[in-house]
């Protein structure tokens, strides 16, 4: 299954090569493929047709970077992207181009003072252990600047759910790949973007290059229907269908785009929900402001525990998100682009 392969691939921001290769292989023959200097992957179909649409999904995931070595051979690491320090301890990782296995270790609880035990273990007190005995041995296996990603298999769980790492946003990548296998009577450029997790850096340049009439961002967003949060505070709920963004810290969905998504979902009886959080950012923040401004919307797969190796998504949500994206394209084919206000 494509989603599993994508999820299990290492693709920390700036090191998306493995994910990109899977996608290139999967999509060869479905459109013109090219990459740019940052590593964004473009798949263009129907060049020259109107209107011109861009669909994007970011390939990168949060992770770690080798910053230095201890004499003992333990690795000092930086965080790449927004990871909660507390999720790091006791996780297996794979490091560097050769995917050297390692584990994230910390001082055993037995040796911690009672005060220390109450605190989160910060990145400064965490090390990646490759099992070697010295700095020299470690340097033979990995180099400074090498990336480390969580190591986690994708597993089926519970009621039609999957657990694994990097569903944010390989779930979106898998949807975009499926969408690109169909043909539509318009120019469609699928962009698998890089470096979203470190500040939407790939999407801005990609949108500058493509400059479409309209853009759809396919994302994975936090489902927070878990104990400790009230229903009003649920960003999204698992199993309640694709999530439509109202606004976030980088972007406000234009009313005509929101109306288009809602109308389409209702017409095709696809369950949907609104993403009820107004913070955090997605590629839409950069895409919508490229050139003279681009009509943009975001459709997300809800997912629990994102940015951890045990993110959890519901396959019905995934299928419904795929269906909604395809249906929105159909709506545009039939009804044209949503109109913006004029006076």
């Amino acid at each position, binding site marked *: 299954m494509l989603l599993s392969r994508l999820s299990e691939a290492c693709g920390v921001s700036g090191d998306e090569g493995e994910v990109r290769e899977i996608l290139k292989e999967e999509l060869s023959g479905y459109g013109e493929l090219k990459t740019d200097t940052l590593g964004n992957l473009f798949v263009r179909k129907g060049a020259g047709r109107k209107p011109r649409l861009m669909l994007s999904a970011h390939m990168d995931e949060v992770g770690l970077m080798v910053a230095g070595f201890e004499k003992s051979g333990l690795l000092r690491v930086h965080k790449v992207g927004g990871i909660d320090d507390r999720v790091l301890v006791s996780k297996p990782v794979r490091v560097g181009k050769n995917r050297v296995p390692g584990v994230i270790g910390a001082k055993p609880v037995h040796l911690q003072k009672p005060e220390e035990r109450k605190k989160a273990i910060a990145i400064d007190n965490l090390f990646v252990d490759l099992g070697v005995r010295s700095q020299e041995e470690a340097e033979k296996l990995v180099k400074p600047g090498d990336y480390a990603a969580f190591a986690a298999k994708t597993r089926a769980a519970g009621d039609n759910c999957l657990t694994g790492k990097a569903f944010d946003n390989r779930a979106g990548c898998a949807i975009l790949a499926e969408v690109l296998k169909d043909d539509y009577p318009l120019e469609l450029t699928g962009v698998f973007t890089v470096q979203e997790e470190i500040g939407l850096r790939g999407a801005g340049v990609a949108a500058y290059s493509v400059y479409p009439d309209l853009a759809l961002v396919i994302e994975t967003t936090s489902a927070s229907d878990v104990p400790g949060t009230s229903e009003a505070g649920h960003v999204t709920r698992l199993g309640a269908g694709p999530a439509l963004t109202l606004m976030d810290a980088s972007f406000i*969905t234009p009313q005509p785009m929101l109306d288009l998504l809602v109308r389409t979902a209702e017409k095709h009886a696809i369950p949907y929900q609104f993403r009820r959080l107004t913070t955090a950012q997605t590629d839409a923040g950069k895409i919508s402001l490229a050139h003279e401004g681009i009509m943009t919307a975001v459709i997300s797969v809800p997912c629990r525990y994102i940015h951890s190796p045990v993110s959890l998504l519901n396959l019905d949500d995934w299928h419904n998100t795929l269906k909604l994206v395809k249906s929105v394209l159909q709506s545009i084919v039939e009804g044209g682009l949503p109109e913006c206000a004029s006076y």
Partner: protein
Amino acid sequence: MRELLRKFSEAYGPSGREQQIARLISEEIRECVDEVFTDTLGNLYAVRRGNGAKVMIAAHMDEVGVIVTFIEEKGFLRFSNIGGLSPYVLLGQKIVFANGTVGTVGMEKLEDIKKLALDKMYIDIGAASRDEAAAKVRIGDIAVYYRELTIAGSRAIGKALDNRAGCAVLVNALKNLDRTDNEIYAVFTVQEEVGLRGSRTSSYRLNPELGLAVDVTPVGDTPEPPAAMDVSLGKGPAIKVKDASVICHPRLKELLLDLAEREGIPCQLEVLQSGGTDAGAIHLTREGIPSAVISVPCRYLHTPGEMADLTDMENASRLLKTFLTHPLEMNKIFPCYLT
């Protein structure tokens, strides 16, 4: 100016949903410009054609607001903020949605008022159930302060003076503009309050030679002000030196000071430590666009009781008008100082 401000201040137009205020402004200016149009993001452009320098004047028309994120079973609305809004200021306020639905803002029981946060608050629109509420308001709908403008002497008190005061100044200047060679693009921008977004795309589209933003600035003349600042209400428009988003072009800043002196317009110099304005986005567009800012001093920003001085606004408008009719050719203002 007073009636213009009243009309603009009381209009609805939070970031991202500026259609109503844009329509009002476009009706006001249609007669005094050559062309009016809008773009994808909703920016409103008003053009005075000319053969001289191409100048962009930006005044953002959006205001801060609240967005509905959840409707409770008993009809209460949960919400989040759009732009910088203090929960303490919001408490007990009347707010209004685009369709005219009015609500009031309440809070859950709190042991400690310091813990007041938006997620402990709700909007009550008088609906007895989720269905009743949903008939009037949907998730994603946005509300703004509900407040009429009050005139107290030479001062105006109301909501959204940030930046409808700037919009009124710009409209007033356009209405009174003499003949000029300059090609003037007045842009009433969107989404300034959430990150200078409308000005980014509109300045890219226009690629002007010069940029000028008309906005409001906080002041330092109130009891124990948040920061040491030499700007007071009633002492004329402020010419910005810098804020967190822009260091205004030194030559343009000096030009504004010279023009104010020449015309006998009182003005002040503004050094703002935090906060930004549309010039922040304009000056970084493409290869760089020299930009400056004329600010209307304004107290109590982002509250429903913002206060500005009408005389300051008149003077800001005069200064703007003088600037717009001044020859603004690049080579006159920026002789290459390194040759």
